[in-house]
């Protein structure tokens, strides 16, 4: 007799029959009936009508039957709360049973019955069970507190269960400790600000002891809990790491990953020059590799996590390329992830092997995988310059296979290769053009059109090629339409004579027949550019493009840090913060890696690491204005400032000018009417616009230049007030007050000289000692002499940075000697480093991301600015005045993150992330720079600029 028969009862009147059987006198029959009920419940039938009959079977000595009834109760109690009360007595009685298994069963089941009335009765038995002599009952009761909290949080607090639960952390039985930790961690998640877990060195020590003794699952609970702790200093951090490392050899992959999480997080706090730091790095690689021999599902989780780890600390796995080679039998999800990591690990040392592999993959069956492999070849070319040539020839080989999707994918990546290495591989264009007809995917078509437009002068029949695309213009996707528009404009600017008709056609298609605003706007902009100033149009449209950066798909640093704190969890699998996929507030606290701090200073770092705030908005990728703008002008990544603000470039040869002008006049004159003078600059675009088009374009264009603005524009540069540099006592009557300012791109040393002596002063001269940035007077000190007693004059001395360099302490210290007819006086002053921020310090977003990642973490410094009441926009404006440029802004969970860059006169770039919490006067500045010494100075100027 087997149980499977219970799954096959489909008769009518079944409920009625069951009812009779449940009330049967025979025990066996009763049990059979309950089994049938459970089977029906499993397959989704509604058997709630049998509630009283099933509950009647509850009082039995047969534990198996009892468990079945409990199972039924858990499912249906909520729908029949009144009847569920009938069960209470049995539960209460069972909680007193001499058999610990039965006591635990009762308390476990009771917690699963989510009926308010029952929870009241649950309190007393639960209190007893929490202090039961048997650990099995205690560990069950610990979890029950979490269950009860989920139903009625207030009740749990009122009854003092939380304190009892805290006591269980010191229990002698490791499993009780583990379950208590799990329950407390869960409850703490819904009280983000309570100090429920109260992690301190003593309790951490208890947890670490229990870690050695409890089950694999308990170890996971404890490690996950440990990861939320912020050690006080590097020594504590190291000692925790030392006690966690043995877990890396556990057979359970989840234990290993959770241990990796703790280590990755706490490592941040260790000084990099510590021997132990290096040892730890070495210890991390083997277990990560071992995870790849687990079952495929776990491999997938491991690979998603390794992807994060490799971005955060590439050094750990840099020698392990081979283990990520794809196996023929790997499931597709493992293959795709491995491919991703291979690209991240690709370097000059291993590129030959990687390429051979990728070529192999490009012949596989799975279309997605093949596409990704082809793309990977392109990314290798961009990442490792030495391999570019081999990559291109590999791609050409693949194009020869004529497999449609391979060809298309290859063309898309070759476009990127052109962008990275201009004027190197254009010889392959002919091969690409042969495949023009087979392209049916928008991305590939757009890439091909871009290539044709970009290299129009080298392709004899470029006009024919583009014209062929134009025929079905309205059926194309937006991507292709935009690209086609730009390509034809490029073509026209390169070969004006033959292509007037074509350009007019595309402009009218884009502006008149399209209902896509992006396309129309771009059409209008081109039209306007061409009609007002073809030279400028050329400058804009054919501007030299910046090279594309190596890594394009990096996870943004803040998000990466957060994900590192979630290693092993779903967030690390999705590569999304928990708030993006978890409902409500539970479990979505924002986690951050702790900041490194020495043994001495400790308190400050804790509030950032420990107490997270609740969150709502899911994080998004940085929405960058730069991108939008680049896209509009099809410069992709060019910040338009360079062309927009600059004076018109090299003069065109007269012939060419005439040709263009004439062509344009006849071409566009009629449409626009009275087209204004050619050659006028961009200075006032709105003014030269014919009224008919003014509305749609003017605003856009104005915005456009606003965004790129800031070049040489006098803005509210922050000038610190003058301070006393040389008191009269020391200067034999000469008093000098001074400050520094940056005006119109020139650093000025502004001084007020007062003669407090009784005699006239003449023959002033000034000299600087060697200093960190080579500041030197750009001219002689212009003091109208004589300076009579009690006379005060203001002088301004322009400075340049061509002087001799010597590192000063502090960095921005300047030693000055002033001479007059009386004596030579020496004094030193400090200049705000913002004086050295140059006007073109705005970095491209991609470059910023890549640079941020590129700069080693030990160069990162973090500061806090207190009592600052600006909002992020105001802060951004203020800083912009000091040539601190905001590249992107992102809002996460009520926090505004400003990503900013600045460049010093000597070419040092400083990257910062400014975090502004709405409603909080404290800003956090994270700063990265290759020359870490400047951090302190930069911070000072942030503080000065923001508080001014």
């Amino acid at each position, binding site marked *: 007799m087997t149980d499977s028969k219970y799954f096959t009862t489909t008769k009518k009147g079944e409920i009625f029959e069951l009812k009779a059987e449940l009330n049967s006198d025979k025990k066996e029959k009763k049990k059979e009936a309950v089994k049938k009920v459970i089977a029906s419940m499993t397959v989704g039938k509604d058997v709630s009508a049998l509630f009283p009959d099933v509950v009647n079977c509850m009082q039995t000595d047969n534990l198996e039957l009892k468990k079945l009834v409990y199972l039924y109760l858990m499912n249906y109690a909520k729908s029949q709360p009144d009847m569920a009360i009938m069960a209470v007595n049995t539960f209460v009685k069972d909680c007193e049973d001499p058999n*610990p298994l039965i006591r635990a069963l009762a308390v476990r089941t009771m917690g699963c019955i989510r009926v308010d009335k029952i929870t009241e009765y649950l309190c007393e038995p639960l209190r007893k069970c929490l202090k039961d002599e048997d650990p099995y009952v205690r560990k069950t009761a610990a979890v029950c507190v979490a269950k009860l909290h989920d139903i009625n949080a207030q009740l749990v607090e009122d009854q003092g269960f939380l304190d009892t639960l805290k006591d269980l952390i010191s229990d002698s039985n490791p499993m009780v400790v583990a379950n208590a930790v799990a329950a407390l961690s869960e409850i703490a998640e819904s009280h983000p600000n309570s100090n429920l877990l109260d992690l301190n060195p003593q309790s951490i020590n208890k947890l670490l002891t229990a870690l050695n003794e409890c*089950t694999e699952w308990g170890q996971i609970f404890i490690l996950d809990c440990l990861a939320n702790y912020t050690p006080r200093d590097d020594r504590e951090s190291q000692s925790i790491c030392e006690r966690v490392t043995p877990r890396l*050899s556990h057979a359970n992959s989840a234990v290993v990953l959770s241990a990796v999480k703790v280590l990755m997080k706490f490592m941040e706090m260790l000084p990099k020059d510590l021997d132990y730091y290096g040892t730890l790095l070495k210890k991390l690689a083997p277990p990560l590799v071992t995870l790849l021999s687990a079952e495929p599902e776990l491999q997938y989780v491991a690979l998603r996590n390794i992807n994060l780890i490799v971005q955060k600390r590439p050094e750990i796995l840099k020698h392990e390329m081979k283990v990520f080679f794809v196996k023929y039998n790997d499931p597709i999800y493992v293959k795709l992830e491995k491919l991703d990591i291979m690209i991240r690990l690709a370097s000059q040392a291993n590129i030959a092997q990687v390429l051979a592999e990728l070529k192999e993959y490009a012949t596989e069956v799975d279309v997605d995988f093949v596409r990704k492999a082809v793309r990977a070849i392109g990314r290798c070319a961009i990442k490792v310059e030495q391999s570019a040539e081999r990559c291109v020839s590999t791609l050409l080989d693949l194009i020869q296979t004529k497999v449609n999707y391979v060809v298309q994918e290859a063309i898309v990546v070759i476009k990127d290769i052109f962008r990275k290495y201009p004027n190197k591989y254009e010889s392959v264009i002919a091969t690409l053009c042969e495949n023009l007809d087979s392209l049916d995917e928008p991305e590939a078509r757009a890439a091909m059109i871009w290539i044709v437009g970009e290299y129009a002068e080298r392709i004899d029949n470029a006009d024919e090629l583009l014209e062929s695309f134009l025929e079905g213009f309205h059926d194309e996707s937006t991507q292709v339409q935009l690209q086609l528009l730009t390509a034809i404009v490029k073509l026209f600017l390169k070969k004006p004579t033959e292509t007037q008709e074509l350009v007019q056609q595309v402009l009218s298609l884009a502006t008149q027949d399209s209902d896509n605003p992006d396309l129309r706007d771009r059409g209008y902009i081109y039209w306007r550019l061409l009609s007002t100033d073809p030279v400028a149009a050329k400058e804009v449209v054919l501007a030299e493009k910046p090279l594309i950066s190596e890594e394009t798909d990096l996870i943004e640093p803040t998000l990466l840090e957060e994900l590192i704190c979630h290693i092993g969890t779903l967030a690390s699998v999705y590569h999304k913060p928990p708030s993006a996929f978890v409902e409500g507030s539970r479990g979505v606290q924002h986690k951050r890696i702790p900041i490194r701090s020495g043994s001495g200073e400790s308190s400050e770092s804790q509030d950032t690491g420990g107490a997270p705030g609740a969150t709502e908005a899911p994080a998004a990728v940085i929405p960058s204005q730069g991108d939008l703008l680049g896209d509009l002008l099809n410069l992709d990544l060019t910040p338009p400032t360079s062309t927009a603000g600059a004076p018109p470039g090299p003069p065109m040869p007269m012939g060419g000018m005439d040709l263009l002008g004439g062509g344009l006049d006849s071409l566009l004159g009629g449409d626009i009417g009275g087209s204004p003078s050619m050659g006028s600059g961009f200075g006032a675009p709105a003014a030269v616009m014919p009224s008919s088009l003014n509305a749609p374009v003017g605003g856009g264009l104005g915005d456009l230049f606003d965004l790129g603005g800031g070049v040489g524009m006098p803005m509210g540069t922050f000038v610190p007030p003058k301070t006393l540099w040389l008191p009269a006592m020391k200067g034999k009557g000469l008093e000098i007050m001074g400050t520094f300012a940056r005006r119109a791109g020139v650093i000025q040393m502004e001084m007020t000289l007062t003669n407090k002596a009784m005699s006239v002063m003449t023959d002033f001269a000034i000299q600087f000692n060697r200093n960190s940035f080579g500041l030197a007077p750009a001219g002689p000190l212009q003091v109208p002499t004589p300076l009579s007693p009690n006379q005060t004059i203001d002088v301004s001395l322009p400075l340049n940075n061509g002087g001799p360099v010597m590192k000063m302490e502090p960095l921005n210290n300047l030693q000055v000697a002033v001479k007059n007819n009386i004596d030579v006086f020496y004094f030193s002053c400090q200049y705000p480093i913002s004086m050295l921020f140059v006007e073109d310090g705005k970095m491209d977003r991609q470059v910023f991301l890549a640079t941020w990642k590129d700069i080693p973490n030990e160069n990162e410094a973090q500061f806090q600015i207190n009592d600052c009441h600006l909002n992020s926009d105001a802060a951004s404006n203020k800083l912009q005045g000091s040539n601190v440029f905001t590249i992107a802004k992102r809002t996460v969970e009520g926090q505004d993150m400003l990503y900013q860059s600045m460049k010093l006169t000597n070419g040092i770039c400083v990257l910062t992330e400014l975090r502004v919490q709405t409603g909080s006067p404290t800003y956090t500045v994270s700063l990265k720079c290759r020359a870490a010494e400047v951090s302190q100075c930069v911070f000072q100027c942030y503080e000065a600029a923001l508080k001014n």
Partner: protein
Amino acid sequence: MIGGLFIYNHKGEVLISRVYRDDIGRNAVDAFRVNVIHARQQVRSPVTNIARTSFFHVKRSNIWLAAVTKQNVNAAMVFEFLYKMCDVMTAYFSKISEENIKNNFVLIYELLDEILDFGYPQNSESGALKTFITQQGIKSQHHSKDEQSQITSQVTGQIGWRREGIKYRRNELFLDVLESVNLLMSPQGQVLSAHVSGRVVMKSYLSGMPECKFGMNDKIVIDKQQGKGATSDDSAKSGKQSIAIDDCTFHQCVRLSKFDSERSISFIPPDGDYELMRYRTTKDIILPFRVIPLVREVGRTKLEVKVVIKSNFKASLLAQKIEVRIPTPLNTSGVQVICMKGKAKYKASDNAIVWKIKRMAGMKESQISAEIELLPTNEKKKWTRPPISMNFEVPFAPSGLKVRYLKVFESKLNYSDHDVIKWVRYIGRSGIYETRC
């Protein structure tokens, strides 16, 4: 934590459904069926997010196990738990099949109640579970009070994998070193990647609570001992034999902190079968076989394939169950094979020539040649030439691992290390052993 656990048959009918959290409703059962089991496309990920609910699934034969959650759970833990769940079910009723699950559904519910509480995995050692959850109804009512507390202390205790008071007349230990050697070789014979993943599997029938110590020729240990002033003879001898272990993981009975500090492997073993450790090596691997492929395309409708295999180990040893799979194109119409040894057959359903040799001694060579006739196709896509794969079994450890000792101490009972009968065996098998052609 885990919000619910469902088991489906291949048609997507639910066989077991246990919900642990209030945020998981009955509709989750259907969502998984519709979006994953009945999905038209092949599953692209073992983790699926449907309407803010995450589903983790594994498949065993044609049974789907799915864990469901709405929270940011530890994903690695969920999968480890699902595997463990499979192990437990296998321990109770061997094969996981629809039939067995239906027959044991009451037992499965009981297990699920025990090993997952409010979505938190609890002790899931089948050895411990079997003491109080049985197929023949619950024993517990017949247990005496002592027995009951023994059960609970085992389930929650530090040594949750072993109960007290085990007695054997003959104390016996079986130790198997099982290795699978993996290789990916280029057609030119260059090793693209090779590693051994090994397992030490034990069967112990020991009385009491014995303390065991296991030693092998681990390079780090041997080097350390040499450092302590072993004789030069010793070091020269053992230095050659020691192997570099890249990484190893242990059964939860092994004291990890002791391994970390002293690199010694000590433990109180579970009773019966268990896997003591897993390890991985990549250096100085003995590759038992070398495959030399030669594929020639003769025109559009014919392929000539010649494959030579060479055995590369002591001539006195015998390899067994050798099987070479040579893939053939999809448009194969006929195959003629000639082989000197063993039997070879073209299997149209597998698109491969399968060549089987029962036994082969070391330092030997054998060869197969085949002519493959192809149907002309107008498909543009070239045949992708999957790698030639190989299976075999050899009576040694390709990593070079040697067991140095396995000592048993039981202070309370009167048997010593010498009284224990120990059996050691080495088996090397092919993992993914492929040569591209």
